[in-house]
């Protein structure tokens, strides 16, 4: 068995919503609702799902931008949720994040060089000329030039800005990088460049990625394993090729059938789902997907399906998989 870097156990994040003023009943958005997930050292674990399914919240929980309602996150065997002060700061060196929107993830008033060098300053790793030199090296690593160090974010294109964000994430030499939709805001030709950069950096720095995206093709291209999320829960988890060739969960099947095929001769057989995603404040009882599922049964309405290993390495949370 491979080495587990991050082990997420029973993780929940509920955002409280203002309760009704009459009944006083409090409710909560169940953004992440009981997730168990292990990330192996050196792999890229893709996390897909439609918007609002909780994948970004899951990523933010792992970097401790949010505090979970319950559950555990073990990083190299240690629960990070109790960390504070110096221990949290030390943890920050191990786990970094790449953000979705390169236009908002860089401080408009700080030059590229000072943004990239800031982690080194904050952690007291290097200072002065040494830090500038390291920032310059990082810029070259991500395909920018050291001459661009003094420039400000508005002087860069979207793709270049994302490269700055990647360099900032690399500065502390982390073991794990949470990439939260790193290419969704970029146009397609730039997407490929950034994805290739991420892959080559992964080899060079022995990185582990938790790659969050709603784009199934991008995730397939990047990931060793893929987890599919629906309404705060993992519904299917398998090796990438396995999941795309033989999806077992009806939700995954519908998602994969919706990937556009660039071949007019091949009519794709779309599996349709009914209705919209239910509200995460009041998700359906039983299997959360049952109101939209083509093969739901009584069991689906009553019992929450557990995520079980149907085939080797292929986990599904469905009463009627296949």
């Amino acid at each position: 068995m491979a080495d587990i870097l991050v082990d997420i156990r029973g993780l929940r994040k509920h955002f409280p919503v203002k309760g009704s003023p009459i009944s006083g009943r409090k409710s909560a958005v169940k953004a992440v609702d009981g997730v168990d997930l292990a990330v192996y050292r050196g792999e890229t674990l893709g996390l897909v799902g439609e918007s609002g399914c909780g994948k970004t919240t899951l990523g933010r929980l792992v970097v401790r931008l949010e505090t979970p309602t319950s559950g555990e996150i073990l990083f190299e065997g240690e629960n990070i949720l109790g960390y504070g002060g110096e221990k949290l700061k030390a943890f920050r060196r191990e786990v970094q994040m790449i953000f979705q929107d390169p236009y908002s993830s860089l401080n408009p008033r700080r030059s590229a060089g000072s943004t990239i060098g800031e982690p080194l300053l904050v952690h007291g790793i290097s200072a002065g000329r040494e830090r500038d030199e390291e920032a310059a090296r990082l810029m070259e690593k991500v395909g920018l030039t050291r001459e661009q160090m003094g420039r400000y974010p508005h002087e860069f294109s979207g793709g270049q800005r994302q490269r700055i964000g990647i360099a900032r994430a690399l500065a502390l030499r982390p073991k794990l990088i949470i990439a939260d939709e790193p290419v969704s805001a970029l146009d397609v030709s730039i997407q490929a460049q950034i994805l290739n950069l991420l892959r080559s950096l992964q080899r060079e720095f022995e990185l582990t990625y938790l790659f969050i995206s709603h784009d199934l093709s991008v995730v397939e291209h990047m990931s060793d394993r893929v987890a599919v999320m629906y309404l705060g829960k993992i519904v299917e988890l398998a090796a990438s090729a396995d999941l795309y060739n033989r999806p077992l969960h009806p939700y995954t099947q519908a998602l994969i059938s919706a990937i556009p095929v660039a071949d007019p001769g091949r009519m794709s057989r779309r599996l349709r789902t009914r209705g919209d995603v239910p509200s995460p404040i009041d998700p359906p009882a039983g299997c959360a997907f049952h109101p939209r599922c083509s093969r739901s049964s009584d069991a689906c309405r009553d019992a929450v399906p557990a995520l079980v290993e149907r085939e080797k390495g292929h986990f599904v949370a469905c009463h009627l998989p296949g």
Partner: protein
Amino acid sequence: MNRPMKTDFWYRFSKNRLAVAGSAVVVLLFVLSIFAPWISPCDPAAIDLKNILQPPSAKHWFGTDQLGRDVLSRMIWGAQISLKVGFVSTGIAIFIGTILGALAGYYGRWVDAVIMRFVDIMLCFPAFFLILAVIAFLEPSIWNIMIIIGATGWMGITRLVRADFISLKERDFVQAARVIGAGDARIIFIHVLPNCMASVLVAATLGVAGAILTESALSFLGIGVQPPTPSWGNILTAGKDNIDIAWWLSLYPGLAILVTVLGYNMLGEGIRDSLDPRLRS
């Protein structure tokens, strides 16, 4: 935020005639204040009892007052006082307002509740009467005036900075700063505050105008800058006593106050519109 800010700003600012006129007034006042000892034709305190309440003439362009002092010289020195009061009291207001606004917006929850309720309480008092009440207990020196005007004028800035903080702290670059391990102080002062300075600058420019007006009013009532120190406000007081025989004592300082306040307002609005043309009303 994503465009070359500086060049766009100056381009739009230079196209705005009112803003340019406003900045001309402000620059002129600066020059007058700084060079007052050399520019003013007479000693502002020189009493000449043989020439009291003389109308404007070639020797005394703006006439003389009830003690025979040259009104023009007194007004030039008065500009210095106005400017000093305007900037120092606005500086105090910005200092208090920015810090409280940053704390309220960044920490939220009970910190926000306490600070904002305090702001509401301060806003409940009619500002001018609050100042009058405080001055009643203090010596009406120019420094006390500045402190009081500043200490009663920070609430608007607090609200502005708080609102900016609330929206900026959710931005990804602030989240990114947290992920790299930056502490609260670093996030507040290095990442968020520089990004809300634009709106503070506008509020400050408009605040200077308000402070100058308040100082003039206090001096007019005799509880601001005390004679013999010249101030536009206390020249007006003398003008009020002699308005039937010496119109120049009321007209010129009145015009000076009007033009100055107007100038600062036009400058402030010009900066605001040039920073973000979408805000133009």
